[in-house]
Structures are given as structure tokens and as C-alpha cells.
């Protein structure tokens, strides 16, 4: 047990003694802040009639289809920001292969399962930390913009706080998925390409395509992005898609994410982590 706790402390030190974490946190804050502020202003403008729907060329019925705006805007933290903890987890793991730091790591802690477990725990916590950064942007900037348009930002609403808590959980699980991907695909460049291609292109397309038929929509609910949105409880993607099938319950979404993380980590452990370090 002490060896596990020491490993966790060492993994934290690994993340915080390089620059990657704060660069990702900074970009995440700016990106989510811009989106939540910009789209928050657009949606709030349309909903309150300040911006005419015709001028932004959306369908006539769209203005009312947003539902409650604050959760939608706040959920940008995870529905868009989730790629950041995945990247951090994947880079933290593939970096060990790339810089051959597995050698000193395994010399200090020869139990490799302990090291991988410690890395996962550490990145779940830091992923949740990125969740706080993302929420600071989406609730802080998005909420301010909504209030400026006279929309109630629901800052004291228990649903808002529940959404925030689930966002932290989702971001932590995404970081664990990143670690799993990192051991599954130890090549750092390949890993980054997979993260970006899948999250920014493949999955959004799959989600859209699957939404047209009821049967495929049910399967589509198990895509990691859909599961994450189900866990958080709101997403701009859920609004954009012609939803015919109810999303998973929040806890089901969480279990699906956990499942992805576990499967990737266990297979990766056998495929690369346990192998010869030469």
C-alpha cells in the first residue's frame, strides 16, 4: 500500500514537473471560455429576441428548441472540453515510452501494475482538475454572458451544481481513457492522431449518422461521447441531433465511460506495459 501511495505521489510529480499540464489547462480555459461566451450570447440573443432567428439563418423553430440555456452552455466544459483530459492522459503515458522513462520508473517500482494503477488514479484526479478549469470558463464566462442578456444563469440551482459534479467525474474518466489509450497505442504521434481524429471527426459523424434510425441510435448511445453527455446530463450535441431515442441514464453513461477506460487499460497493460523494456 505504501508503495502504491508513493507511486501516486511520484506520478503527480511527473505531471507537475513538466509544462504540458498548464499549457493544456490554459488552452482549455480560453477555448471553452470563447465557445461558452460566444455561443451563449448567440443562443441567449435568439431566445430573448435580441437577435432575430432570420439573421443567423437557423430554422424558425430553433429558438425555443434550446430548452433551458444555462445547462447547455455550461456543458461545453465536457461536451467540447473532454479531448483535453484524454490528451493529457495519453501524453503522460506515451511520454514514458518515448523518453524511455519506463526504465527509471520500473527500477524504482518494479511492480508494473502498481505503477499503471497509480498513473490512472493520478490522471483521474488531474482530469477532474481540468474539469474545474473548464467549468470556470463555461460557468464563469458563459454565465456572465447569459446574465448580461437577462437570462437567469441558475448559479444557485441544485441542477447546475449536479451538472458541475458530473462534469468533474466525466473529465476524470476521460483522463483514464487517455491513459488506457496510451498503453494501447504507445507510439505518441499515433496516439495523438487517434485522439484528435476520433474526437473531432469520427465520433461526431458516427453520432450524427446513428441518430437517424432508432436501432442505430440505441447503439450510438454507447459511443463514448454520447455516454459522456448522458453522464453530464446536457450537451449541445443532444440538441443538434434529431434525437429519437432517449439517452442513457447518467449513471449508465458513467459506467460506459469507465468500461472503455478499463478495457483499454487492461489490454494495453498486457500488450505494452508488461513487455520488455529495452
Amino acid at each position, binding site marked *: 500500500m505504501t508503495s502504491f501511495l508513493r507511486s501516486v505521489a*511520484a506520478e503527480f*510529480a511527473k505531471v507537475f514537473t513538466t*509544462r*504540458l499540464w498548464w499549457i493544456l489547462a490554459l488552452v482549455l480555459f480560453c477555448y471553452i471560455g470563447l465557445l461558452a461566451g460566444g455561443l451563449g450570447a448567440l443562443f441567449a440573443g435568439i431566445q430573448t429576441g435580441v437577435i432575430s432567428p432570420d439573421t443567423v439563418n437557423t430554422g424558425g423553430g430553433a429558438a425555443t428548441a434550446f430548452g433551458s440555456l444555462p445547462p447547455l452552455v455550461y456543458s461545453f466544459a465536457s461536451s467540447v472540453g473532454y479531448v483535453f483530459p484524454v490528451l493529457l492522459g495519453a501524453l503522460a503515458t506515451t511520454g514514458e515510452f518515448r523518453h524511455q522513462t519506463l*526504465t527509471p520508473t520500473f527500477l524504482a517500482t518494479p*511492480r508494473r501494475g502498481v505503477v499503471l494503477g497509480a498513473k490512472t488514479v493520478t490522471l483521474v484526479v488531474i482530469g477532474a482538475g481540468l474539469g474545474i478549469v473548464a467549468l470556470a470558463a463555461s460557468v464563469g464566462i458563459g454565465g456572465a454572458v447569459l446574465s448580461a442578456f437577462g437570462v437567469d444563469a441558475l448559479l444557485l440551482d441544485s441542477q447546475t451544481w449536479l451538472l458541475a459534479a458530473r462534469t468533474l467525474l466525466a473529465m476524470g474518466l476521460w483522463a483514464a481513457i487517455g491513459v488506457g489509450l496510451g498503453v494501447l497505442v504507445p507510439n505518441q504521434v499515433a496516439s495523438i492522431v487517434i485522439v484528435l481524429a476520433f474526437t473531432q471527426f469520427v465520433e461526431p459523424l458516427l453520432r450524427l449518422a446513428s441518430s437517424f434510425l432508432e436501432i442505430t441510435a440505441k447503439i450510438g448511445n454507447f459511443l463514448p461521447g454520447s455516454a459522456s453527455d448522458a453522464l453530464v446530463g446536457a450537451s449541445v450535441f443532444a440538441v443538434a441531433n434529431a434525437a429519437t431515442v432517449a439517452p442513457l441514464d447518467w449513471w449508465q453513461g458513467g459506467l460506459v465511460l469507465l468500461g472503455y477506460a478499463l478495457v483499454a487499460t487492461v489490454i494495453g497493460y498486457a500488450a505494452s506495459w508488461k513487455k*520488455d523494456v*529495452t
Partner: protein
Amino acid sequence: MPTGAVIEFTNISKRFGGIAAVNDLSFTVEPGRVTGFLGPNGAGKTTSLRILLGLVGATSGTATFGGVRYRDLPNPLTTVGAALEAASFHPGRTARSHLGVYAIAAGIPRTRVLAVLAQVGLAAHAAQRVGGYSLGMRQRLGLAYALLGNPGVLVLDEPINGLDPEGIRWIRGFLRDMAAEGRTVLVSSHLLSEVQQSVDDVVIIARGELVHRGPLSSLDTDAAPQTIVDSPDRDALAAALTAAGITFSIGRTGLLAATSDAALLGHLAFTAGVELSVLHRQKSGLEDSFLALVGGSHTL
């Protein structure tokens, strides 16, 4: 002062796909001595050391420290310090934070970090990013990592690579001191001359197999002894040697007599009334016997 454990390789074999990198290797390394682990490129030195440290799984056989496998040591860094040839650093970390990470993992006090950096002469560069280090500085940082837990056993893979002359002299003294304190010191090299001033024992491998082991002096006796002798009257000298039944060949600087007994040659010349201009024992190069042992390996 930590005392060393006996390192024991027992029938270690390792295959990478079809290649037998190490084949049935058995030897022991004693505490209080510096043992040179020698062999040409690709002989299997790094592979053997990584097996010993649990980084590579042996196909068969066991390698232990005082009977315990590396992975079963309670806190390995405080028993065994290892520096392997590959530079294993994140370039964005400073030397201090690099060592700090592993000090945390092994529960070693943080004060050791600056102590070992000072010990290897890197104190002034502790706060510098490792990405900007020279090869020799990286080599020293690797050594600092090995010393972190003040271990009784040191396993160093080609620690002299990349060091400047001052660094080489320093590490030779350092290895001697470590052994004098009772630690076990195992140092690999592909050049005997690089380590011959500091090693007590040698273990020589070629093509993954043990070819020689013993004290350094055991390499000396393996080669044929020769003595160079010359005279202004070379023909008279040659006649005297022939009369005494000593075979010789004619070399650039005189006659190469097939004996190590210089006194006998001097006596023969004296009794034959031949004046000598040269008489000295040809030190058979250790490097020569080393090359003879690992011979043919350059055709990998």
C-alpha cells in the same frame, strides 16, 4: 555504510524472436570488488543487465541479488543502483525534478537529490532542463540516479561513454572507492582498456555466451610470453639462442624470443660474450588476449 550483495546469474538465456541474445549465462559477482562485464557490441551485455534488473524477462534462468530477484527486493533503489546506457530522461524536466520524481517513488529523502547531484559534479546544473545536457552530463545524471538510494550494489552499463578525460579519471577513482567500501560494483564496457585500471575481476562474453571469467591478471597468462632481445652483433646472439634451444623470430626492434625469462637470456648472452643492446619483456597486451577471446565477433 551499505554492504554489497552477491550478484548471481544462473543459466540465463534470452531470445528475441529468432535471435539468441544471451545463451545459458552463469556467473557471480562478489562484493568489495569491481567486476568488468566485457564483450563486443551486440554481445548481450545490456540485455543481461536488463534481465538482472527485471526490465527484460529472461526466456529461462534466474538472476538475483543475494538470492533475491530484483522485483522481490523490498525497496530496490536502496539495495541496487543502476545506470543503463540509454539516456532515460524527460527533456523538459530539470535534473533536480527528474531525480525528485524517483526519490518520491522510492521513499528516499529529498535531501539525497542534491547530495547525489553534488557527488557526480552536477550541483551547478541541478536547476537546468535535462534536454540541454551534454552526453557526459547525461551520463553523470544517470549515475546520480544510481546513487540515489545509497545502494550496496552498483550496476552500470557503459558508464564511461561520453565522459571527458577528467570525468574518466574521476569515475575510475569512484569505482575503486565504492568497492573499497564493500559494495558490489558491476561495470560493462566493450573496451577492456577503458576499465582495466579499475577492475579486479572480468567476465567476458561474446555472442551471448561466457568466454572467460576470473581476476584481471588471468588475462595476462593466457597469451604466449615473449621477450625482445637485441645485440650489435645480432648473428652471434642468434647463434647463442639457437644453441640454448630457445626459439625466436626476427622482429622490427630485435629478436622476439619465446620465453618470459629475461634473466636467462641475459645470462646466455653474458656467457657467450655477446653484448646486449636491448633486453625487455614484452608485456602481452591484455587487450590482445581480450580480442583473442572474443575473436571473430566483428563479423556479427
